């Protein structure tokens, strides 16, 4: 068998580029769906840590609540979904 062809990745013109680091993707996801940096209307300003935000997202998605950006959590963040935030504030 010949060695597999080394895939050469190209940037396709016109594509909405989504190549972010995993951490950037995760932070973007957690903010977009209301898990962190939500603008509190008033009252107690609880700044949610990334770890706590990850745990909240893992609970919402029925994943193991590790608070870590593990593979299954990252996979879940890449899944097609509804745009309505999970945490409404």
């Amino acid at each position, binding site marked *: 068998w010949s060695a597999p062809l080394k*895939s*050469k*990745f*190209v940037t*396709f*013109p*016109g*594509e*909405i580029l*989504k190549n972010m680091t995993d951490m950037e993707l995760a932070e973007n996801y957690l903010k977009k*769906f209301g*898990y962190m940096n*939500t603008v*509190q*209307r*008033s*009252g*107690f*300003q*609880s700044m*949610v840590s990334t770890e706590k935000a990850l*745990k*909240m997202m893992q*609970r*919402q*998605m*029925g994943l193991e609540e590790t608070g870590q950006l593990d593979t299954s959590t990252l996979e*879940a963040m890449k*899944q*097609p*979904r*509804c*745009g*309505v935030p*999970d*945490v*409404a*504030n």
Partner: protein
Amino acid sequence: YKTFAGDPKWDHNDVTYRIINYTPDLEISVVDDAFARAFKVWSDVTPLTFTRLYDGTADIMISFGKADHGDPYPFDGKDGLLAHAYPPGEGVQGDAHFDDDEFWTLGKGPVVKTRYGNSEGAMCHFPFTFEGKTYTTCTTEGRTDNLPWCATTADYSRDKKYGFCPSELLYTFGGNADGAECVFPFVFLGEEYDSCTTEGRSDGYRWCATTSNFDNDKKYGFCPSRDTTTIGGNSDGAPCHFPFEFLGKEYDSCTSEGRGDGKLWCGTTDSYDDDKKWGFCPDQGYSLFLVAAHEFGHALGLDHSNIREALMYPMYTYAEDFSLHKDDIEGIQYLYGRRTGPDPTPPQPDTPTTIPYPDPDETDPTDEPTEPTTTRPVDPTKDACKVTKFDTITVIEGVLHFFKDGHYWKMSSNGGLKGPFSVSERWSALPAVIDSAFENMLTRKLYFFSGTRFWVYTGNSVLGPRSIEKLGLPNTIQKVEGALQRGKGKVLLFSGENYWRLDVKAQKIDMGYPRYTDAVFGGVPNDAHDVFQYKGHIYFCRDRFYWRMNSRRQVDRVGYVKYDLLKC
């Protein structure tokens, strides 16, 4: 299930909807049917009815759009965000938007509904054979008018059943030409066009003139996607060009070469290397019916569920034979009640309903015996204003009660504080420290929690103490610190930074709990030692302070228990 803050819902059952525009991926009749079936999912289990309007303003305005489509929440190209919708209300509220950079199908690949031919609008049958060759897409083979067609059975030669495929040469949709087909070439802004174009538009939709000169006649329509139309990319939906050259190699079919995400793409000219023109190949696509049923759930007032099998779960999963999950039904019926009338009834719960719910009045033989208690004398000089932190505050028979170390005070309706009274005199089975309490509005039963035990008083008779695990709370809980009535038969029980929803009649915790308090009740401390409801507001207490939340779950006041509630 979850509803939006303040439980927004339509104040009428005859809800109206209007389809503002269409996706080029599906025949108009397929879109109409998918939306109608998606509404039926909800009307089957509620008193709601859905009436389609063809102009003017409807409750639920449905539209397709790409990227920035006119509201503050842009879509993100193919995959990722599929759609979104707004909770019930005026204006954009209640509307549903679908991302048209997605490939909309019924979940199992291109939906190619034929027109004309001799199959009465039947769907193409892929693969089909024609003159010994097998086809997996529409073809213009065998015709001189370049119209794409397909067989509607597996073997054309045998059955001779066929129809014409969606194509701009056959018809257009939307626009102002009543669906007339494109005329090529046509002139637009002085230039000649031989194919559909997105020129002149900012929404990325492909259109064409239906006369030879748009500048003069201003007649146009939108181009339906062909079954070989590419998705996204930079070719405005032009079909794949086979073979095409990429990195010096020739390709006769779609490929994922050159990409790290495995998505199939193709060149739309004979050389990608030269022209850099490409698009994604049609895949299974996303079921417009399933996504619409989810979005309409939002438009009716349901937020996301964390039950993976529920329709209102945020992530998309294709389901072949779909039926609403119990969680979705409970949620929508919490808002609108059950469907009246004979049928169809929602799927019955899997546990046989002949088994009556455990009635808390039945003494459970495993219950600990009610301990004999002695009445503790009341110290009349005990001053409520000197208490920094009450054991619990709750409303009983409409009156605010403050509990502390075996005593309680009552706030009468004219604002005067009465007490102290002895807890053991009125509820002899109770211990001195009460962590939380609530009155079930349906049965008037009083629930008291202390540590990991609870008591249920019905008048003067008492059941308990029993372990809170009997209610389905985990044994990791040290104490229940707050209780909020939700509707008639549900109560939220708070402990630490979590809360659970108790179905009082079933005496068990609902699925999908616990939830983080600050995920739903944003803006309050997530370690409140007391949570109670009073005069339409929710109070979260921590030390001497309280955070008051209104029915829309907005913190509208932070104050002192002592001065504002006790009126010290």
